[in-house]
């Protein structure tokens, strides 16, 4: 089964504590919702193979703790990530306000500049919404991210979020191929006298 996997992609989920990162991941990988999920300690890790546009991709997903104190460790997991899912809770404005901090962190620690970011507004099943969908959209546009609203509880948007992200990564040249031959610019011009020898070559009179 693994043979036809096109590539392994490293994906990172970040965001304030309690916004539902682990719940989203659990929904995506196991299609369940577990209200008994404990607050993440350090980082957690899950794997899932998905197929996008007929391409199979194995996702190694790192779920980080939003807890302030654990954050000193998480930047190290940003290394080599091809995609990042940044989550906020639509029923808690403070988690939306903190997004800027997260982006800063991303910028500081990401090792590659062509990483694909996705913004997810979670918990849309809840009544007491504090962040409007348009605000999320605006924020995403401003920072050139993908955007979707979702609910880990009702399953809304979850599958879609991961698929979109993977699709975008696969479309980004050089991001998923670790050995990207011929991607480099060709700078060596055909030098004079090439074409070899006295005959057949392109040359000047002298």
């Amino acid at each position: 089964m693994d043979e036809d996997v096109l590539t392994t992609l490293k994906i990172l989920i970040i965001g304030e504590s309690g916004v539902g990162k682990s719940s989203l991941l659990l929904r995506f990988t196991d299609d369940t919702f577990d209200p008994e999920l404990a607050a993440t300690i350090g980082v957690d890790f899950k794997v899932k193979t998905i197929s996008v546009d007929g391409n199979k991709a194995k996702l190694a997903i790192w779920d980080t703790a939003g807890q302030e104190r654990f954050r000193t460790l998480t930047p190290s997991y940003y290394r080599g990530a091809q995609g990042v899912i940044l989550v906020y809770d639509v029923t808690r404005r403070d988690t939306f306000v903190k997004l800027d901090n997260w982006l800063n962190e991303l910028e500081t620690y990401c090792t590659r500049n062509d990483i694909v970011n996705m913004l997810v507004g979670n918990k849309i099943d809840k009544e007491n919404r504090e962040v409007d969908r348009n605000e999320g959209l605006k924020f995403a546009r401003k920072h050139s991210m993908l955007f979707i609203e979702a609910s880990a509880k009702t399953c809304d948007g979850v599958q879609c979020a991961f698929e979109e992200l993977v699709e975008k990564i696969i479309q980004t040249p050089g991001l998923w191929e670790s050995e990207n031959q011929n991607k480099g610019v060709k700078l060596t011009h055909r030098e004079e006298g090439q074409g070899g020898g006295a005959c057949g070559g392109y040359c000047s009179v002298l």
Partner: protein
Amino acid sequence: MAADSEPESEVFEITDFTTASEWERFISKIEEVLNDWKLIGNSLGKPLEKGIFTSGTWEEKSDEISFADFKFSITHHYLVQESPDKEGKDEVLEDLIPQSMQDLLCMNNDFPPRAHCLVRWYGLREFVVIAPAANNDAVLSESKCNLLLSSVSVALGNTGCQVPLFVQIHHKWRRTYVGECQGPGVRTDFEMVHLRKVPNQYTHLSGLLDIFKSKIGCTLTPLPPVSIAIRFTYVLQDWQQYFWPQQPPDIDALVGGEVGGLEFGKLPFGACEDPISELHLATTWPHLTEGIIVDNDVYSDLDPIQAPHWSVRVRKADNPQCLLGDFVTEFFKICRRKESTDEILGRSTFEEEGREVADITHALSKLTEPAPVPIHKLSVSNMVHTAKKKIRKQRGVEESPLNNDVLNTILLFLFPDAASEKPLDGTSSTDNSNPPLESEEYNLYNQFKSAPSDSLTYKLALCLCMINFYHGGLKGVAHLWQEFVLEMRFRWENNFLIPGLASGPPDLRCCLLHQKLQMLNCCIERKKARDEGRKTSPSDNVTNTYSGDAGKSGDHLGPDNLKDMDKEKGEVGKSWDSWSDSEEEFFECLSDTEELKGNGQESGKKGGPKEMASLKPEGRLHQHGKLTLLHNGEPLYIPVTQEPAPMTEDLLEEQSEVLAKLGTSAEGAHLRARMQSACLLSDMESFKAANPGCFLEDFVRWYSPRDYIEEEVIDEKGNMVLKGELSARMKIPSNMWVEAWETAKPIPARRQRRLFDDTREAEKVLHYLAVQKPADLARHLLPCVIHAAILKVKEEESLENISSVKKIIKQIISHSSKVLHFPNPEDKKLEEIIHQITNVEAIIARARSLKAKFGTEKCEQEEEKEDLERFVSCLLEQPEVLVVGAGRGHAGSIIHKLFVNAQRAAAMAPPEEDLKRMVPPEERRQNLAADFPPAAGRELILRTTVPRPAPYSRALPQRMYSVLTKEDFRLAGAFSSDTSFF
């Protein structure tokens, strides 16, 4: 009857190939190829635009055919053109002569700067060449040549192909071709004469005209006029006063450190030889008619100064030796060396060092011994020398690959703090050096994964590069590295921070070596804090230089402060599966039984608030706003906590691998959380110590405020009260948080087991450094060297302002950042980057050379100066540049002067004999005082349209090209004749 004859004629038409000769097979193969390439029939393209041979794209298609077992290659060369719509035109074109015949007369592309010789000679836009496939094969005998030519002729006739078909005869270097082009009722024969020695009558126009006319053999009177195009090319090699200014740096002068324009930390730049070797001036008379000018063996009207067209090209030295490129290339070569440092230096240095000088290396025994007493009063200026002396003790001074002055200079450059009297404390080391620019350039290290340009790592890379090039090569590199490693150990053992490294945990954006050094600095910092803490009383131990992540971790946590963490050796907390613990870790810890008794007994799992509250609070950092403890209303204190362990990327990699290996099962996830909970547990213990009698609720309000949910409820008396409780996920029985909370004992951070064992980590780093071979080192540092080289090229370019180079540099940067971000970039890719950098260096050197030669700086008039600069930059980018105003323009007069000066010098310098030998007497007479040397190349194109072979035949294009150079003389004629009416 008709029905009967059908089968008969079919039978009759069967061709029996079983008896076909090799010759027939060869012809049919040629035909096959011509058919495959669809070269059949006449397809008239657009008339050739001016200069299209240079500006357009040429392509070629090849195949292989053989005559018996002799292999030929057959190649179609053609100028890429939009295909004209053939539809409907064929009928009309029936009578027209083939495209190629018409092209013989076209004057728009005479003397192309760069082209296939057949294009130059015949002005063709497409043709097919059959040549021996192997480079040293040749068709020599006349009979074979004739056989080939007749094959061509038959193939063209059979297929109706109108593209000229050539065969290459004689040795390849002679570039001799014969060929043929056929059209309906017309044929052009391409013939060639190639001579080493020139008959005198061919050296001038009148003689050549005679040949042309006799070849045409036209008897019409008067003869239609012959149109003439002439180009003389003059070569300038002697640039006179324009010495190439770049001298290879003086190696001996370098000992002083900053002499000869070279300092450690600065890369050299420029070409060692003039990257522009020759200037070729082509003077052209594009359109003359017979009779207007005279050019014979006694007189010539063709004065180059008067030529209506001038164009120049420069000849660039092939791969000029360029300093920067050489530097980087040589450094890169180290990457392929296999030897270890010890092998290079001829013995096991590190071991011997250790035996003789006790305080220097005990890499592993250190782990089991108490830490050495730090030498606080050591003046730092001794520091560097201490390490050096140790080496010298081992080895005679003479033996050292690096001479002492050089070594001293480098070490002072790398460790400037050694020169100052006072030891540096912590942060000042980096703050002193040039302030980090927020510029794009400064941040290049981020893209290249190198190191900041003011960092120790970067400087080390440059020094090693310099040493490798000038001071002992690989041996010197090994020596300096060994010195460096000794210095690192010395600093670790004596609590001296390493300068030139940003404080805080390793910067993962930098190269691994840089991270390792930062890691070592973290260890030194902590050890220093601990040692100082032990020395002084806890109360006045306030100097905490560790800034670490403090800024990042948000104020409600407070700065992670170590200040009293280690003032005494704490006892070990109950081991609770923590990530970073291990047995060896406790070797330095003194067990403090007093403390144990004080807290241990009461801090059992069941220790409720009542008992706990009676404890003396310890390790408080500061009050947490207005929060109070839930059970007694006492202020809630944020505790002093342990700093999480700094990590280098390889450690992180290891860790995440271990974590990932645990799999995705529930147990795996649980174990993973446990492994990472050391920090949580430690924080809980600190919190408990600072807030005796607290609950998990209290802790959560500090640590994870969102998991404490407060609600307004109305109590029995009808008042609004704020009622709080843990979030659902925190309330789940025996979740890891609860579990950890129950395990945690009230122990202040300073008495907890260390989360980060600086001693062990430091030894790991030092060992890592010691075992790096020069090749490893070079690989670690190559990104820094490339980074530096690109900065250098950028800096030099900014002085010249060459827009094409700017673009190339941008491309190199983006290319390099892609290549260097992968863990083990391929050598091929690295080589390519270095090659690109060298190319840019050569381009800049060429630009400088040309600017000096044309004196762009000396030009006073702004407008002229701009024109001249444009002209010079065109010379760099285009194969040939037109001189506006020819000999009378500004650039033209400069070129003229260059030639005049060279001529004067030549007239004075060489002895008579030399001159006699080189130049025929009459030419010498003519040129001795002339402004220009004899033309190095004389090209002539003669064209006309005359009936051939008989006066009543069709008038067809005739052309003859001749070129005379020092080495040879060539006539290439294309003579067309009417094949139907003669």
